[in-house]
């Protein structure tokens, strides 16, 4: 009887351990993008990105509040929300994807790993498959993920009036940095 009891205890403990470390999360991920031209700097930043990474199956999710992008110019922020992103109708952008080379990454061992990520990006309700390569730094039970990729404004039905078209780039460089910690609830 005692052995079973002990076994159960160990089992219980072990299980809570694995469950704890399976999901990694951040609520303060950063995304910035550059849509500027030589005439105008457009480089807002969002410091409130939520993201979850499941290290057992490589699933990766992002949720981005559009209104949390902050611009150097207040008017630019207003145009971004009101006219380009229509953030009242589409308050959030999401990404749902997977690390496709999970076998190359050892989350139990500190180090720097290259991760190939593939998934579906949703902006203004429009879904698009994207792929990007990211750097994952595993260090002391935390994971720092960074990536850069390019998006085309036209893919997401973002119309730029001809009057300002020389100020806004058609291609947007996106930069992401997330510091994941084990998700506790």
């Amino acid at each position: 009887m005692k052995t079973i009891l002990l076994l159960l205890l160990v089992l219980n403990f072990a299980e809570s351990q694995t469950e704890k470390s399976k999901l990694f999360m951040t609520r303060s991920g950063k995304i910035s993008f550059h849509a500027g031209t030589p005439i105008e700097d457009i480089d807002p930043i969002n410091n409130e990105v939520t993201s979850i990474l499941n290290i057992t199956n490589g699933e990766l999710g992002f949720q981005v509040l559009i209104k949390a992008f902050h611009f150097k110019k207040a008017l630019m922020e207003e145009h971004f929300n009101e006219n380009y992103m229509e953030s009242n109708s589409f308050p959030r952008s999401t990404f749902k994807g997977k690390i496709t080379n999970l076998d190359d990454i050892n989350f139990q061992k500190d180090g720097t790993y290259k991760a190939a990520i593939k998934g579906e990006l949703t902006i203004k309700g429009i879904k698009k498959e994207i792929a990007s390569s990211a750097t994952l730094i595993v260090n002391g039970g935390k994971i720092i993920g960074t990536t850069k990729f390019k998006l085309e404004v036209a893919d997401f039905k973002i119309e730029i009036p001809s009057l300002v078209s020389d100020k806004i780039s058609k291609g947007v460089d996106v930069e992401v940095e997330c510091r994941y910690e084990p998700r506790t609830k």
Partner: protein
Amino acid sequence: MKIIFSVLLIFVFTKSTFSQDVDSTDLMFLLDSEKSNKPIPVIATFKTTRIINGHSIEQVAGGILDVKISHRFGRLNEGAYNLFGLDYAYIRIGMDYGITNWLMVGLGRSSYEKMYDGFFKIKLQQQEENGNLLSVGILSSIMVNTLKLTDTNRPNNNSDRLYYAFQLLVANKLSENLSLQITPSLVHYNLVAKEEDPNDVIAIGVGARQKITKWVSFNLEYYFQIPKFKLPNTENVLSAGFDIETGGHVFQLFCSNSTGIPEKNFISGTTGKWYKGDVYFGFNIARVFTLTQEGRKTKWE
């Protein structure tokens, strides 16, 4: 012992079903459950700091200079000889500056009555998603008439030429496209023409903005003067027009029965009657310049 055993068993069992839940739960569902209910400020209740003649709830953001050129042409009912009033115009040149996101100041000079005006506007409360229902602000302005004295025989004090206006601005952006504002207003005259005239004119303003496209909106503004507190032979001012935005510029094109631009003139000094065709075409052009970007959260933290 048996009890402890069964309790543990139940514990382990429920725990594993819990983790089963986590296993089968979609990552996006988990993310969704992390949504914060943090209040988010509602932006762009109106396109600019003026609805038409009167102030809107909007402030110029901190560090931004907003240069405003306003024209009021002659009356439409002057006919073709004066090209429906376009032959002459009153003009106000003004500048608004945002000291902080909640405090703005402005200066202007109008050719009508050679009037200088200065004001400050404070945002007291901002409408928010998951938060405040209304935006609330106050406006305090002072105006001085600098026309040459017409009667030098009577005693003239400099203070006689001063006017003050105080407004409470209460606004709500009802939807993406429709915004409303109520503006209780007081205009104080240090000197009025006759003894029986009130020194304080009290009016209630209402304003609305309806977006038509992403860059164009229709605006309406009406100030109702409380009959006991209005000057004789004055009309309530009604204005209607469009805001047209083109990047850094906002053009406001409208018709109004007022030819004056500062509060003293349009709230309490309007004489034109819409039904007689005493309608003035006018426009405001606003151009913003970013002077400082300090205090904006745009750095990698």
